């Protein structure tokens, strides 16, 4: 019942000048699970996953992958360790087209001498694959694959970012509000994608403000509040209303001791 966590963090602290982003946060991600992170705006969710994925360096605390401590010097290190992330800011290059963005940093080369000697990109191949990846997410309104990303609608842009992570995730998938700008159908598609990833045994961290979505796919829910972890619950142990109450500080987890039925698994609530 208690396998080794794939990714675990202890006592993460991150401050920005006088603003406190994270205030000693622990997190564990077990194999094959979907861990949702919820919390008010500014609760530190994005800061937390940025620290986990190398985009920020925490001021204090440690991060372990498969039990070994790691020190990411940048997102590339995390990616090399198999962590694929969709950031809330999307991290797309606005002037580049969709295919270039999807394959950014992992471009595919032509076969033969053209690729090995001249290092020529396989543009057509990448464009075709990008089209497939996007239509897999249900984005059917894209009329022109050579459009620069800056001319896309908000949701289309987000879809590009999600498709990138979905296509390349190898160990852990981290999604920071991946459906915020997506339509009903497209959101549904992303949730399907997450479930599909779980069925392949890959664990996912999902940040979302959409409680129905969270309760639909999450195995466990990490509640972030004012830079700290307010507790970890499951969709079975708590209702949406209770989750929101904890999130907003209306109740604390200790108030409802009985509910924390997976306490033994996560180990150390405060």
């Amino acid at each position, binding site marked *: 019942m208690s396998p080794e966590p794939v990714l675990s963090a202890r006592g993460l602290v991150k401050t920005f000048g006088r603003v406190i982003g994270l205030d000693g946060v622990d997190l564990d991600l077990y194999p094959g699970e979907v861990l949702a992170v919820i919390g008010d705006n500014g609760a530190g969710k994005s800061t937390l996953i940025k620290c986990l994925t190398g*985009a920020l360096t925490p001021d204090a605390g440690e991060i372990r992958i498969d039990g070994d401590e790691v020190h990411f010097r*940048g*997102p*590339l290190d995390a*990616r090399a360790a198999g962590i694929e*992330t969709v*950031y809330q*800011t*999307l*991290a*797309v*290059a*606005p*002037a*580049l087209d969709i295919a*270039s*963005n999807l394959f*950014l*940093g*992992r*471009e595919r*080369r032509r076969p033969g001498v053209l690729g090995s000697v*001249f*290092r*020529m*990109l396989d*543009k057509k191949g990448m464009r075709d694959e990008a089209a497939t990846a996007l239509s897999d997410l249900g984005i059917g309104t894209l009329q022109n694959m050579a459009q620069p990303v800056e001319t896309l609608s908000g949701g289309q842009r987000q879809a590009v970012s999600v498709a*990138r992570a979905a296509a390349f995730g190898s160990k852990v998938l981290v999604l920071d509000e991946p459906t915020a700008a997506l339509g009903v159908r497209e959101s549904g598609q992303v949730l399907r994608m997450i479930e599909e990833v779980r069925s392949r045994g890959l664990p996912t961290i999902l940040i979302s403000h959409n409680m129905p979505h969270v309760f639909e796919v999450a195995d466990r829910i990490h509640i972030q509040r004012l830079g700290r972890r307010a507790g970890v619950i499951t969709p079975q142990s708590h209702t949406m209303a209770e989750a929101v109450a904890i999130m907003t500080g209306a109740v604390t987890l200790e108030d409802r001791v009985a509910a924390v039925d997976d306490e033994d698994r996560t180990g150390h609530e405060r």
Partner: protein
Amino acid sequence: MTATIQTAAEQFALRRRSPLQRVQHLLHGYPAISPLLVLIIAFAVFSALNPRFAQPASLSLLLQQVAVIGALAVGQTLIILTAGIDLSVGAVTILAMMVGAKLAENNGIPGVLAVLVAIGLGVVAGLVNGTLVTRIALPPFIVTLGTLSVFTAIGLLYTSGQSVQADKLPGLLNWTGETFGAGRWRISWGVVIVLLLYVGVGFALANTAWGRHVYAVGDDKEAAHLAGIRVNRVLISVYVVAGAIYGLTAWILIGRAGAASPNAIVDANLESITAVVIGGTSLFGGRGALLGTLLGALIVGAFRSGLSLAGVDDQWRVLAVGLLVITAVAIDQWIRRVKA
């Protein structure tokens, strides 16, 4: 949207097009055409003013005149694409040229070695610039402003301001100035090298992963970082490649000038940046193409020569070049701003 229904947008697309808008629309499809068009107009006007302008002999000379700035502008384009700017182009080129030439003159090193020394110095200078930009995170403007002074001073201290005459240099160093005939054209080897440079770097920018990364870094550094691009490595590579290009340009400059002189290419910074910007590359990085730079360099060169051939007086020419630069880019903007 679908082929069968005539939608409102399709109706709109069909009506309301003046001939001028049609031209604008056509040109919009091929962005590189627009500076090309400016160039063609310039050619038409100037050869109307003086028929000699369009003759192969004059055009061959134009190519040779533009070669040095054109080559430097390749490096400058790379750096500007990453949202940087290089004020040390001229200083690096002069330093590389003078050290190579002095070593050949005083220590008798062979020509090949002198060229390699020049390129090597360019690489070192690029490494210095790149390291300061990435490791200490200084703005490129400041870094290259500083190294502009530093490299200039080193060059002057090393050479005492003395130039080296062609006859004291190995033949290879002058080779870039030698010409060969092609019909009524006379092309110098320097021009050939510069054109190859455009082809090579243009290919790398458009068709390799490195090229994509250069654009991505210039477009949005933070996003590129989050997307897992080694931003610093890309930046350093760009400064180093630019430096190597400046070193190579030093060789072309010797052949062109017939001497290695610390006074050469006084306005290299402004002129190379001008070629890049007229060529349509954004000073904010991430947008532009190398072909535009080539056209930009040719446009400025054509204006200067054309006005001179048209017999426009010295100071009036300064005025005219100013007006023309504005007009050229205005036409370009007009084409880009096409609606529908």
